[in-house]
């Protein structure tokens, strides 16, 4: 057993280091948050609702996807609609399961209670910062928490101006605000690119979603496509095998 394997470390210096390490991600977070605010306003969410969703859900991609599946205008809220959104959100955020699992060797030095609390802040960017920091030999949990806190505050803060600007525009379509979500999503594919082979599941996901969108009502197609992509990736042989 190495000397550092089970020493829980959590310091204020670590939290500040987390702030600093996550800085490069902040411009992207600001834009994403503002884009979400504008898209939420185009879908008829009030400012309070948009800010509340950012504060409590704090997962941009799932918030955007939920807007796409949001009941139209005056449509009555049913338990089925709520359950559908919850399942869709869980599918979109299921990557967090892997991210959380990958942090296990580091986090297990701390108590389950602290982990249940600090994992509220787990998101793509602080996971990335934390994973790099840990790979470089760092062990201070404050880095993960500090980076997560910075992201959380920025995410809420910049949802607000996005919503206010979006609400000013009387005809969202004319200024293409209805396209903010799809354009932002499509742009995200570029940094996710890991070669043609890794993109095969994406193509399958897109095509399955396209077909399902013609066969089934609602937004089942997002889940159908996402699951088809995962199954494809699981069935593909190991690279080089």
């Amino acid at each position: 057993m190495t000397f550092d394997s089970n020493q829980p470390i959590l310091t204020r210096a670590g939290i500040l280091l987390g702030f600093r390490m996550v800085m490069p991600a902040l411009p992207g977070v600001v834009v994403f948050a503002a884009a979400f605010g504008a898209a939420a306003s185009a879908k008829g969410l009030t400012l309070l609702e948009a800010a509340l969703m950012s504060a409590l859900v704090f997962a941009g991609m799932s918030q955007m996807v939920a807007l796409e599946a949001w009941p139209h205008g005056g449509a009555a809220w049913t338990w089925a609609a709520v359950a559908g959104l919850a399942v869709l959100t869980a599918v979109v955020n299921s990557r967090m399961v892997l991210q959380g699992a990958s942090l296990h060797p580091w986090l297990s030095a701390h108590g389950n209670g602290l982990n249940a609390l600090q994992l509220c802040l787990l998101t793509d960017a602080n996971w990335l910062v934390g994973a790099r920091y840990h790979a470089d030999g760092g062990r201070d949990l404050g880095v993960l928490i500090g980076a997560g806190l910075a992201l959380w505050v920025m995410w809420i803060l910049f949802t607000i101006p996005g919503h206010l600007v979006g609400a000013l525009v009387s005809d969202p379509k004319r200024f293409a605000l209805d396209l903010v979500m799809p354009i932002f999503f499509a742009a995200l594919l570029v940094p996710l690119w890991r070669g043609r082979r890794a993109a095969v599941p994406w193509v399958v996901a897109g095509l399955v979603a396209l077909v399902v969108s013609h066969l089934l009502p609602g937004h089942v197609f997002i889940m159908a496509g996402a699951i088809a992509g995962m199954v494809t990736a699981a069935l593909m042989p190991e690279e080089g095998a």
Partner: protein
Amino acid sequence: MSELVASLTTPGVVVAILAMALATYLCRVSGYFAMNLIPFTPRLRRALAALPGSIIAATVLPLVERLGLAAGIALAAALGAMLIRRNEIFALVVGLTVAVAARAWGL
């Protein structure tokens, strides 16, 4: 008071947001706690690695079909912009500008 609350939000929306928050929280903690019990196989790892791109493709492709030619051109422009300069702001501005222009042209 109830009128003020009604102007700010509706109960259904709050319930939906709480349900989304709970679903997300379970995703955040379940991986860590599952690792106390089960190992992640390479197969499961690959499936989860393919998920973000799959979600994007599954969301965007049917949407583009629904929204029409202008949306498709705008998305292609944004992708091109992102390839040239890896900057989300730049890609978003290019995409929206192209969309507004394409719609003004009546596409």
